[in-house]
């Protein structure tokens, strides 16, 4: 009994130490802010890159002279999908951002945006392909050229399929950006590690930050599911 009580007290102490002492919770919140900033910037950049790449690929497949553009896009997608994001991060950080005024958060966001772009490109491609071919033909037979058809008819419909997948990609990014801690970014994961370095008790801060992630990720997943259901309900009316 006594030893159980002691154990509980000592565990309680550890967590008190890891969260309350010296206002350490501020450090997690700061880390969370950075995690979310990186993820948000990255998904915006990723969506932009992904949509452009998907469109370029799509056009390149239709126009003979543009094959090489399609190949470049495929090369980009393959390289990104073929290597760990951690390595991509290290390489981009050391290759491109060598200047003194690099803001690490921006660098990380750009790395993850470039990474995400390859996955978003596939999402967009799938979204476009999910639109019935008849829509394309109907557009063309009204006299639209293929870009106009894409713009006025295919994309507005595809976006509806793409948005939930993009939301999902954002959630994936929140988790994935934890590896940003290898470059000088103090995100939520890194914050936990530093607090562990200070208290010499590394488990409690790790678990605290895991709980932060869990709340954010599961919360957003629920929200996304809810929005998706609402959107598809709109469909049925």
């Amino acid at each position: 009994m006594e030893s159980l009580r002691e154990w509980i007290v000592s565990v309680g102490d550890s967590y008190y130490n890891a969260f309350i002492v010296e206002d350490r919770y501020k450090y997690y919140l700061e880390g969370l802010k950075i995690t979310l900033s990186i993820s948000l910037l990255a998904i915006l950049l990723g969506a932009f890159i992904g949509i452009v790449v998907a469109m370029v690929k799509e056009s390149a497949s239709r126009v003979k002279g543009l094959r090489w553009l399609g190949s470049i896009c495929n090369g980009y997608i393959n390289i990104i999908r073929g290597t760990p994001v951690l390595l991509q991060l290290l390489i981009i950080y050391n290759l491109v951002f060598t200047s003194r005024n690099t803001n690490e958060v921006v660098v990380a966001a750009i790395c993850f945006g470039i990474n995400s772009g390859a996955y978003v490109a596939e999402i967009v491609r799938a979204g476009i392909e999910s639109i019935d071919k008849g829509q394309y033909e109907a557009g063309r037979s009204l006299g639209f050229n293929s870009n106009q058809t894409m713009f006025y008819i295919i994309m507005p419909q595809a976006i509806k399929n793409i948005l939930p997948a993009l939301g999902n990609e954002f959630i994936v990014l929140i988790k994935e950006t934890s590896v940003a801690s290898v470059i000088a970014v103090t995100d939520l994961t890194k914050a936990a590690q530093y607090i562990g370095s200070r208290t010499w008790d590394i488990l409690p801060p790790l678990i605290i930050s895991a709980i932060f992630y869990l709340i954010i990720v599961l919360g957003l997943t629920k929200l996304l599911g809810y929005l998706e259901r609402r959107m598809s309900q709109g469909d049925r009316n």
Partner: protein
Amino acid sequence: GTKSNNSTSKDNTSNGGTDTLIVATEPGFAPYEYIKGDQVVGIDMDIAQAIADALGKKLEIKQMDFDGALLAVQQGKVDFVAAGVSVDSEREKVMDFSVDYVNSKEVVVVSKENPGVSDLEDLNDKVIGVQQGNIADFWVSNEENVTPKEVKRYTKFAQAAEDLKNGKIDCIVMDFYPAEELVAANDTLTIIDGTLFEDKYAIAVQKGNTELLEDINGVINQLIEDGKIEEFTANHTNAQ
């Protein structure tokens, strides 16, 4: 584009155009640098602040892995590194050092209950934990010094300490002051008597950045003269 690290190009070295001074550190190395609240503090940070004050600039602290910090300064991503960086001939080839401000000694930390290492001569065929890129990493990696069974390289001393407590490694080779902090926080660990080797801490700047180096040297010499370094040390060791 790619830039050879040996280049002494000046494009980023002079920070004349900006009013911030960027210092890189790895805040898992109390009392030299550690986290307090949401701030990075420590002896090195006090010195860095003094340098910034002397130059009339704003200090910006970047938190990095130790080896990452040393690379960042070579690439000019930061102005200097204050992270308990030991002066070392290999490093002097790729970066410049200020005058040293601490005479440090490297010690061996083991478990109290069943020490994996009995004395300083006993490091051969042991599993040794170090911080990656730290002077101890180079020292134990040099076969002339010791022939360990395995060297485990960590980015965080806390992880190494955890592994030592769990017996995954036999000992940690690290600096004396942080080692004291470590054993103070973990009563199952202890420091083996004696010094494995001695080294000196200095501030690292990009190779060829003599202007900044001279400023830093001036500040450090002044701090030493005024006894400020001892004062800083006392502040951060007694605060425990």
